[in-house]
């Protein structure tokens, strides 16, 4: 009676677009980052690409964008998957327009989500990963306040998960006032360790589900 059906050949899969996991790197390129810090950061970005490329699912699903901030807020890289991500060679100069940078990151995410929705693409909660060695500088205080306000509302409404990392002399107390999640202090300039951790975290996010909170492995590269 057995009509010999080879399931592996007979069953066809639905063609759904690959779900996307957007991540914005928001990087401080102000003058104080000059020298070792910016060099270490650039090396970290290369390590990030290398590590993320090793995970086949994450490399299809994670989309990266890079925004830098000094006296200017610049989108260095709009959202691309890892294979198309060229780690930029960043240079350091000027002041720290952090408020405008936060606004820009949240704008990018909002726009990307609209594109996903318009194309029927499922997505994960977007991440912003901000790295700074200072505090807002050179901007009117009201811009920083507005950015902090918007960030609070976006976190409360689960629009984004925003992580802040302080480097060397970063003003951690000030950072804690601006962002919702407790900022993490990078130990030394171990950007490579940090980016490998970020890559692992993105891989975990891109292939599992969490209940409400984004669950993260404890960082070995920083202190709260």
């Amino acid at each position, binding site marked *: 009676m057995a009509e010999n059906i080879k399931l*592996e050949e007979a069953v066809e899969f*639905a063609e759904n677009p690959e779900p996307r996991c957007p991540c914005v790197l928001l990087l401080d390129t102000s003058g104080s980052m000059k020298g070792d810090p910016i060099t270490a950061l650039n090396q970290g970005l290369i390590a990030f690409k290398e590590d993320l490329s090793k995970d086949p699912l994450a490399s299809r699903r994670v989309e990266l964008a890079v925004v830098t901030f000094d006296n200017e807020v610049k989108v260095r890289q709009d959202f691309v998957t890892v294979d198309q991500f060229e780690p930029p060679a960043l240079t350091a100069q000027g002041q720290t327009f952090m408020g405008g940078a936060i606004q820009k990151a949240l704008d990018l995410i909002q726009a990307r989500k609209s594109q996903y929705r318009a194309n029927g693409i499922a997505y994960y909660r977007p991440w912003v990963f901000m790295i700074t060695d200072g505090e807002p500088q050179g901007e009117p205080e009201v811009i920083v306040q507005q950015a902090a306000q918007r960030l609070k509302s976006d976190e409360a409404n689960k629009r984004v998960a925003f992580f802040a990392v302080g480097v060397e002399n970063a003003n951690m107390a000030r950072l804690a006032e601006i962002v919702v999640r407790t900022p993490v202090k990078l130990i030394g300039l171990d950007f490579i360790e940090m980016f490998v951790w970020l890559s692992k975290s993105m891989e975990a996010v891109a*292939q599992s589900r*969490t*209940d409400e909170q984004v669950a993260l492995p404890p960082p070995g590269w920083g202190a709260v």
Partner: protein
Amino acid sequence: MEIPAASSKPSPWRIIAASVRGSSHEKKNQPCQDAVRWQSLPGDSWIAAVADGAGSAALAEAGSAAACAASLDFLGRRLREVPVPATEEKWRLLLADSLQAARQALVAEAAARQAPLRDLATTLLLLAVTPEAVAGAQVGDGAALVADSSGNLLTLTRPCLNEYLNETTFLTSESALEKPQLQFRPGQINQAALLSDGLQMLALKMPEGTPHRPFFAPLFRFLETAGDPAAAQDQLAAFLRSSRIQQRANDDLTLLLAGRIPSPA
């Protein structure tokens, strides 16, 4: 995975299920956190449950097993002891009570293990099939599909449409039982499938959650022509472990297939 032995009582239904560990769980050395169970009831009826323990929860496999067992025990007992619900409203109440029973079992399990309830986070899908109707309940991801006598395959309960793919509702959430999906369709069905969220993107057109027929048709034909149910179950598990599937899905995968087999007479 816990699969009860097939009943020796002749039933027009043939039911097989398989639950396999996902490749990402293998990498992290996590157990399969899905669970599937079913039981036959008198009068050519049957009930089934699929639960998908959250990868981030420490005791997910205990949560999914407890949710399946408790909900089926409760639902089975009620369907044996009291008349089968005659109205949609009564079915909805019975299913809601069954979900409640599963949640209470998780609360008890958490207390016994002195663990927080969230460590047992799991989704839960329930299906009850009688000759007169089908009823389904769902908290979280996964889907239940049924085909009527003319072979139209429909989604009975579907993946919950939260904004983010990786954030679903679990039975352990505070709000889990506020508005679960409770669905009822009068009339006889001939086929049914339950799947956990690992198969969603392959078996359903998302985000609508409608069935992708070329996925299901060969599976139901396989079920119909299968000989020994135990061997068929092994073949189903082998299919879920095949590289074609594992390349596209790395979560735990569970699939239950049920078909009314035409009697030879």
